[in-house]
């Protein structure tokens, strides 16, 4: 009477093979097409919003980085004069300001520095052709500024060392100046290249010897192309409405176009003023006129230094600081500005946008999961009898568990795939509403994450219904109507 409990050949059989189970799940989903589709909708929305959100943020990030590079990138640091701190106020008359001596000192003393560009700024009004234009930036600099500020000359030439040496009245203008003074090519219908023309800068005649190319963001290029494609629509709406600086980063490019540069020496020679006159003007946010330092060289408005690599940023900042503290005899009349903060702002924004978007998409996925769980619970109570039959002919608790779980996961995965497809449609719709925004960038990583989440949601949503189904007692299940 003491026979073994169950023969091993019976007890160690594997579960019903997965292929059949998946087939059963698919058939079940197909049998309730509409219900399954509604169930999937939550997952579809969750996955597609996750992917679309990630793509939009990526697009915005790319646009912001594009602007960051346009203004010289992270490698650029700027040394600006500042008021001496309160505790050194008694030394103010000995403060030299940032001067060309500092350029030499940094060149000689700092490692990992590439180009150094000393710059003077002034308020300027350009007059020519009977029109006036106030550039955002009127700058006196050495020819190296071209490389420093990532400028590209499209017409004419850059001023050179001889122009600087001789303090010639020559300037290179951005397209905004051209547009304001001589008209845009679109208005006049022909390319306007004012090389060789005379422009009065603060009433001093200058010859335009070069013009930069037109700088624009990816987004602006698309706007322009769109406008070119729909000329009749443009005409119908009248003059284009200015949208100001808002809307992302393209103001960087507008400012860059509103630039006029001349040789450093020219600006110093032609526009130097007394310290008193400068002080009167110093309510302007920029530097206060062109003044001499006690050493007889101009007080620079800023000194831009490009590093050979961002990796040395902190070290080089400290190095330059040490050098300047020496040359300035310990008077702290200068400060540093880097693009780090901007870069950090971009990263911060991207993180925040990801988090809030991810949260919303995550909630959509959770809601989708609850929908799946709900429908699976409804489905098993409809199928109590089926479960009883399956158990009576030999399905184990595990087989039933797996069957329900697989069904839930299959719903979620189909929803996930549909969601990925929908995300492209969603981006298409967003794109057609605002074709000029930053192009969304769909990454494989985002798709993988979203799809992975849908699978996880499918498993989690299926666990409880599957457990409940697997615990049904076969006799009670068979009696169930």
């Amino acid at each position, binding site marked *: 009477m003491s026979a073994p*409990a169950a023969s091993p050949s019976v*007890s160690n059989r594997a579960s019903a093979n997965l292929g059949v189970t998946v087939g059963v799940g698919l058939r079940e989903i197909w049998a309730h097409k509409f219900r399954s589709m509604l169930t999937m909708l939550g997952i579809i929305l969750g996955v597609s919003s996750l992917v679309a959100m990630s793509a939009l943020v990526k697009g915005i990030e790319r646009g912001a980085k594009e602007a960051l590079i346009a203004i010289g990138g992270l490698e650029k640091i700027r040394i600006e004069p500042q008021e001496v701190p309160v505790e050194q106020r008694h030394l103010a008359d000995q403060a030299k300001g940032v001067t060309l001596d500092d350029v030499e000192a940094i060149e000689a003393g700092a490692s990992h520095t590439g180009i150094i560009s000393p710059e003077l700024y002034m308020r300027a009004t350009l007059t020519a052709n009977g029109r006036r234009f106030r550039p955002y930036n009127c700058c006196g600099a050495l020819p190296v500024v071209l490389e420093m500020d990532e400028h590209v000359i499209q017409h004419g030439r850059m001023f050179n060392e001889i122009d600087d040496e001789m303090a010639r009245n020559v300037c290179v203008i951005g397209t905004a100046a051209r547009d304001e003074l001589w008209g845009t090519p679109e208005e006049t219908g022909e390319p306007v290249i004012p090389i060789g023309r005379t422009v009065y800068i603060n009433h001093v005649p200058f010859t335009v010897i070069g013009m930069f190319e037109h700088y624009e963001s990816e987004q602006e290029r698309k706007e322009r192309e769109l406008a070119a494609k729909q000329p009749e629509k443009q005409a119908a709406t009248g003059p284009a409405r200015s949208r100001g600086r808002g809307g992302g980063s393209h103001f960087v490019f507008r400012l860059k176009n509103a630039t006029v540069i001349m040789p450093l020496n020219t600006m110093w020679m032609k526009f130097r003023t007394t310290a008193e006159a400068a002080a009167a003007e110093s309510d302007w946010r920029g530097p206060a006129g062109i003044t001499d330092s006690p050493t007889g060289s101009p007080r620079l408005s800023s000194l831009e230094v490009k590093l050979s690599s961002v990796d040395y940023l902190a070290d080089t900042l400290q190095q330059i600081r040490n050098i300047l503290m020496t040359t300035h005899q310990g008077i702290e009349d200068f400060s540093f500005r880097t693009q780090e903060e901007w870069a950090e702002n971009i990263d911060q924004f991207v993180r925040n946008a990801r988090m809030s978007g991810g949260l919303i998409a995550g909630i959509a996925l959770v809601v989708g999961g609850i929908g799946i769980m709900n429908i699976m619970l409804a489905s098993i109570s409809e199928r109590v009898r089926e479960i*009883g039959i399956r*158990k009576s002919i*030999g399905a*184990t*608790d595990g087989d039933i568990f797996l069957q329900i779980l697989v069904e839930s996961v299959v719903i979620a995965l189909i929803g996930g795939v549909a969601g990925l497809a929908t995300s492209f449609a969603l981006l298409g719709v967003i794109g057609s509403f605002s074709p000029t925004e930053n192009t969304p960038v769909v990454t494989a990583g985002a798709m993988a994450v979203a799809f992975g989440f849908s699978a996880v949601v499918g498993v989690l949503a299926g666990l409880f219904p599957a457990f409940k189904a697997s615990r049904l007692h076969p006799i009670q299940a068979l009696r169930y109507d």
Partner: protein
Amino acid sequence: MALVELRNVSKIYHLGGEEIRALDDVTLDIDEGEFISIIGPSGSGKSTLMHILGCLDSPSHGSIRLDGTMIQSANARELAAIRNRKIGFVFQFFNLLPKLNVAQNVELPMVYSGISGRERHQRAMAALEQVGMANRSQHRPSQLSGGQQQRAAIARALVNNPRIIFADEPTGNLDTHTGEAILELFRQLSSEGRTIVLVTHDPEIAAVTPRRIEIRDGKIAEKLDLTLAGLSPRGGRVPHEVHDQEPGA
């Protein structure tokens, strides 16, 4: 050694503090190849007996040995495997899965024993052949008559080549003529050496089997009272001798 050995099996339910003995100290042997009916009015405990014999339920007391395996000590997984390999069920309401066609329904037990697709199909077709349903293999259960559905269900019970088949009121949902055909099928299977247990409340149906066991109030009745059941030898329905309670102390 008998195929099934029940020793002092009891099944006790507790309903609102009251103890209900659905089965009370039942001892019973079923030999290989027997064709046996369990008869009793509803509530007599015959269904409980069949559930315990069929490994769908476990007894409160006593021991059961099926084909050399002690059932009462087996866990749920082992019971499922025993139901799958050694037992075939035929139900009153056929219990075919409506979403599957006949062949898929018949294949189902083999799915749970991990048999490959091709072999499943061959064996399902062979079983359907045996019950005369091979030409209906692609039909849905809803497209079949009751008798045809029950034949498909019998094919499903046969397909894993079980040691014993339990049929719970297999004709209860069929008209007399169809029911007789189904009983004839069981008789034929019995003559091929299958062990079949027929559970019914109807003495006329029980009369088909050579051996009958009557359950009353959870116990095996001492003597089967044919006159009480209103059964007279008409139409040659009682060709076999009636055994009294065979095994015992």
